[in-house]
């Protein structure tokens, strides 16, 4: 199987990249492990702010539907419920539909594999009922299942604040938010304050001393600076922040740099969102964890670069388009994240990790 452009991951960045490349007449294939387009947007019921034009402010699943509708205008090859198992010596990627494995050869690859939630470990964190906060959101908003009656949250990022609101709305009793750092990590204070106002306890400089339960979690000991107390909960939701998913980049022999504010190790890329491997481009949260608006813009920049390389867009036009998109990116994402992104790009030629992959 051959394609001009192979897009890996059908979340917001992947779909935007598919729209951009397909609209220029390129032969585009998009692959995702899920049976639906939209990636993690599918279970985001909160309003997304700071989306780039022409998007109005809308809920995550609405944006997923909007993007999916746009895609249907183009003759794209969909490989849903397919996954990549790795790369072969001739540069083709191995794809499986769970029955067979077959190779696909692409002129250009855009990897938009997104982010993964980081774990937080404490004694007995392996008990059932202890899961990532994103897992709880998936249960509530995608599978329509209430994962428990009462919960404590471990961590306090913006991602968690949105989800806590959604959990409360389906009747889950949130008994406290436990943050190891001296301050709450979320930046959108409006959402934090709303939780304060309804009397939700925030504990800083705090951690889980131990979870207990036979077969599933029943109680947790919460360690504060001056005391320990027990909460009886059947749900402990872990919010350890998010990091780019690196598996495939590693296989593709991409180099990596490190950016704390981008989520840790991040594949190296230049301002065209081209990785250290010529034909491999990157988009979305894989380029560093950012707001939803930024994900769309990175997808567009990566696609513009691919269009230029495949000569369906003149260099001049591509540069102009890219420059505008970069301006928009700067205006949409948090300043410190944008600055770290620029720093990451500056280190493109001197990556901290390279030639990692040995077949």
């Amino acid at each position: 199987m051959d394609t001009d452009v192979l897009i890996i991951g059908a979340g917001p960045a992947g779909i935007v990249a598919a729209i951009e490349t397909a609209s220029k007449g390129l032969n585009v294939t998009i692959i995702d492990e899920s049976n639906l387009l939209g990636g993690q947007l599918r279970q985001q019921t909160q309003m997304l702010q700071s989306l780039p034009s022409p998007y109005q402010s809308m809920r995550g699943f609405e944006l997923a539907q909007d993007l999916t509708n746009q895609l249907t205008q183009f003759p794209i090859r969909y490989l849903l419920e397919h996954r990549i198992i790795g790369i072969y010596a001739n540069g083709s990627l191995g794809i499986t539909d769970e029955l067979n494995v077959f190779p696909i050869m692409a002129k250009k690859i855009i990897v938009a594999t997104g982010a993964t939630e980081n774990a937080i470990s404490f004694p007995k964190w392996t008990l059932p009922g202890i899961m990532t906060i994103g897992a709880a959101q998936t249960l509530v908003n995608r599978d329509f299942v209430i994962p428990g009656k009462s919960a404590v949250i471990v961590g306090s990022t913006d991602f968690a604040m949105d989800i806590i609101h959604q959990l409360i709305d389906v009747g889950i009793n949130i008994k406290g938010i436990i943050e190891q750092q001296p301050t709450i990590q979320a930046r959108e204070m409006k959402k934090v304050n709303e939780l304060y106002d309804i009397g939700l306890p925030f504990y800083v400089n705090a951690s889980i001393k131990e979870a207990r339960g036979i077969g599933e979690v029943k109680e947790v000991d919460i360690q504060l600076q001056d005391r320990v107390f027990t909460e009886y909960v059947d749900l402990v939701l872990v919010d350890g922040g998010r990091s780019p998913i690196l598996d495939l980049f590693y296989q593709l022999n991409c180099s990596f740099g490190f950016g704390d504010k981008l989520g840790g190790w991040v594949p190296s890329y230049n301002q065209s969102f081209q990785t250290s491997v010529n034909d491999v481009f990157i988009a979305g949260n894989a380029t560093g964890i950012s707001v939803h608006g930024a994900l769309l813009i990175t997808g567009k920049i990566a696609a513009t670069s691919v269009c230029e390389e495949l000569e369906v867009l003149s260099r001049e036009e591509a540069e102009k388009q890219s420059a505008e998109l970069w301006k928009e990116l700067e205006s949409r994402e948090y300043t410190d994240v944008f600055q770290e992104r620029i720093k990451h790009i500056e280190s493109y030629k001197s990556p901290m990790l390279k030639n990692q992959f040995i077949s």
Partner: protein
Amino acid sequence: MHIENHPVLGKQLQKPVTVYFNNQPLLAYKQQTVAAALIANGIKKLGESRKLVQSRGLFCSRGRCCSCYMTIDGENHVRSCMTKVKDGMQIYQSLGDPEIRSDENGY
């Protein structure tokens, strides 16, 4: 518990199916994953760890952590968070490693 009427998304659970956990029938809905359907029925322990034999359940829900491995329709070590329910599905907890050296498998 199933969410019959979601505060934002409304009534989404339309097509009921029956799945069997340890041969007991459970109500699930089409499009739910196996892990989600079990949690809706109050079952959180999906298996046991291989070394220390401790209870395990859903953790990442993204098919990455493998904490939700179960035996589904005779196939062991299936990621129950990535597998959609089907009517009549037979589901068992993942308890230890299966015996692979059997006549059936050519040994």
